[in-house]
């Protein structure tokens, strides 16, 4: 039967080409608009570290002075160096990391490329647990450990991109990386890695690329390397240096891995105890106000996904709704025009359900075609998004899940659009129609 319905459908679609093209375009455009914005939204709001995002927690303490305090207010979103180092020493989580972003000068002469001009690279100064926690994939070698961290080792991990630039992609373990005028030994090279969003440090831009150079935190401070990102100070720093251990400035990201809810609960208690101790010691003025937040909650709180993106999704759905209404209207008009044909089929013994099926098949095949066209338009839409120079442009790629969703959406949309016309069609009373003819 299906074959027959398909044939009938194609005939009817062919007989009114103009209307068919209109319906096709209408469905395809609506679906493409939806899929383009949904893909962008899906990529931007996705879980950057699936399977582990509920075990990684951002840590916040509230060391700011008592003036301008709001009861139950949000603590500062970054940490001081003093608190970070204290928590890191006590190691109460499964893993813990303190870190900051930076932009640092690379001297290619140190790596044997004397004729290459010096350039700036994005760096991350971090304690050793960064690697087991955020799991960047390694191409060569591996990371440093906590002892090297404390020993202020001159070692570095670099990205594939930087490795290509300086060493033409060769295994560069043991080679030298010169930062400013200091030499580091490369111990690891990462594979391509772009966590999106850049969840562990949103101050570098929520969709920025991951760093190209990773250095032990203590080494970077011993060498007085500058850093970049957000810094909030609430008093004057010793010697005007906001990076000093005792400076009243928050500028570090601190994350902890806690594998069970019990561990998380215990850790929060520990943080509040720590805050109370600091208050007793006179370093804190405010009552304990510690927070830990898993990845997705942290991203939501920091509003990582640009609100424009959500607006675009709503807009696209509005557009789809109009397109669908349009398709329903046109399909309906087309079906009603064929009431004569339906009358004949009914009079010859076709049941209401077969008429209904026939029209649904017609609508479904229209949806299939609309899906193919919609997919082409979606690819075009994503190409436009990519050619836009926003920081997340390169992320806008259609994945298989979205590819499937496009088709399902198109077919479902056209079936929905076909339901009403099909129902109306099967309501046709044969006698009346034949009489009119």
């Amino acid at each position, binding site marked *: 039967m299906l074959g027959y319905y398909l044939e009938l459908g194609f005939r009817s679609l062919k007989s009114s080409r103009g209307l068919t093209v209109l319906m096709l375009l209408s469905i395809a455009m609506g679906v493409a608009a939806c899929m383009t914005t949904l893909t962008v939204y899906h990529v931007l709001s996705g879980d950057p570290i699936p399977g582990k995002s509920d075990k990684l927690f951002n840590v916040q303490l509230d060391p700011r002075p008592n*003036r301008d305090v709001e009861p139950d207010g949000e603590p500062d979103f970054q940490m001081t160096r003093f608190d970070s180092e204290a928590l890191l020493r006590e190691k109460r989580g499964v893993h813990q990391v303190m870190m900051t972003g930076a932009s640092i000068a690379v001297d290619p002469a140190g790596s044997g490329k004397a004729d290459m001009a010096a350039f700036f690279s994005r760096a991350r100064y971090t304690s050793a647990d960064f690697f087991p926690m955020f799991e960047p994939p390694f191409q060569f070698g591996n990371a440093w450990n906590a002892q090297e961290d404390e020993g202020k080792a001159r070692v570095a991990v670099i990205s594939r991109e930087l490795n290509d630039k300086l060493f033409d992609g060769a295994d560069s373990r043991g080679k030298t990386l010169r930062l400013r005028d200091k030499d580091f030994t490369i111990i690891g090279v990462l594979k391509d890695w772009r966590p999106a969003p850049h969840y562990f440090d949103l101050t570098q831009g929520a969709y920025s690329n991951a760093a190209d150079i990773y250095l032990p935190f203590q080494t970077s401070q011993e060498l007085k390397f500058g850093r970049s990102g957000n810094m909030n100070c609430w008093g004057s720093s010793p010697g005007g240096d906001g990076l000093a251990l005792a400076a009243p400035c928050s500028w570090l990201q601190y994350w902890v891995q806690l594998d069970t809810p019990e561990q998380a609960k215990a850790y929060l208690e520990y943080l509040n105890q720590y805050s109370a101790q600091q208050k007793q010691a006179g370093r804190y003025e405010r009552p304990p106000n510690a927070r830990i937040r898993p990845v997705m909650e942290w991203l939501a709180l920091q509003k990582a996904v640009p*609100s*424009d993106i959500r607006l675009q999704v709503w807009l696209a759905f509005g557009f789809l709704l109009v397109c669908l209404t349009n398709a329903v209207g046109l399909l309906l008009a087309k079906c009603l025009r064929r009431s004569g044909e339906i009358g004949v089929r009914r009079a010859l013994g076709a049941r209401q359900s077969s008429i209904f099926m026939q029209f649904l098949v017609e609508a479904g095949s229209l949806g299939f075609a609309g899906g193919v066209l919609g997919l082409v338009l979606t690819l075009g839409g994503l190409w436009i998004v990519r050619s836009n120079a926003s920081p997340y442009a390169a992320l806008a790629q259609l994945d298989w899940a979205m590819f499937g969703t496009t088709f399902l959406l198109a077919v479902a949309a056209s079936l929905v659009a076909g339901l009403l016309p099909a129902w109306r069609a099967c309501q046709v009373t044969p006698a009346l129609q034949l009489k009119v003819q």
Partner: protein
Amino acid sequence: MDILPILSTLKRHKIASGLIILQIALTCAIVCNALFLISERIATINAPTYMPDDELVVVGVSGMKRVENPEPQTASDLAALRAIPGVKSVTIANQMPFGENSNNTGVRLTADQNSPGAVGAAQYTLAEDWLKTFGLRLQSGRDFSPEEYVYGSVVDPQEDPVVPAIILSATLAQRLFPNESALGKSVWVYGKQPQRVVGVLEQLPESYPQPGSEPRFGLVLPIRPSYRGGYYMLRTEPGQRDAVLKAAVAALDAGSQGIKRVVRYKKLVSDMRSDYYRQDRSMVWLLGGVCLGLLVVTAFGIVGLASFWVQQRTRMIGTRRALGATRGQILRYFQTENFMLSTAGIVLGMAAAYGISVMLMKNYELPRLPIYYLPVGAVILWALGQLAVWAPARRAALLPPVAALRS
């Protein structure tokens, strides 16, 4: 034109008429809000910066080595930049609008660092010629005198630095000293010693402007930044900025011989501004595209439905023509029908537009949809409907009276 026969015809096509009304309503609602959003974004993009954007270029250099005394190098850089032909004036700034960083501080009216109620403000630290280079104007008071300037690399590490003078933005002066002149007053911004207000600026651009929101506060301190962390700002003769930017980079490269420095930032301020508003611009294009798409889809929907109706009513049209109706009357019949459908859609659409606006206000901190967008949307959709129905209606009007007898 009698509308009763039209109504009774439409009653027999409840679903089809309902759908077209719904479509017009949705289109009207979305287009009204989208047009409003577009106008908001365009206003944002075109918000004044109060600077001669088209005459400004920015260059930043960074050393490969930590230098303890960067002042002589900075001074010779400034001299080299000043010597470039086409340069009107040069200064060095810790930050600028649309730049990489934002410096903010708290302003107090007492010496007590722990007193509550500090007013947050953008903190510019600038060297000589800043007023001319940024193209800013003083509302009252004077520019810093030469002896008031200090070096950042000197005062920053000091236990008790002395910075004698400060210039406030008009908004900050008004906030700190309402209804009186700020000139000569003391404020505590930098260190333990107060700064005396010597001038008030008409406008001081923000580092990250947010047009449409409350204007924020700003201040200028006479603390000269060094090339470490500062940005050279050059004001050029009109039309010479590209040449000046090239020459500036070359001059700084030449001045970096032997001390290993990298020019890591070189931009035209107008490009920085254009980058800064990129997202807003792409939103304008996107919203515009969606509006156009909606209008096209709706227009084709109207064409499709009207064509179908014309076809379906061939007999009726033929009969009317045979009974003496003119072509004009048939044409107007369909036009009136479309006008009635559009009107119903527009009325519904206005209510929906308002509803969407309320939702947007709640979720996206947008202002309320101004009421005049509703008639604009209505006119657009009425025009669209009449335009779309014209071809099918004309086809109907051209039907010969015998058509009624033939079918």
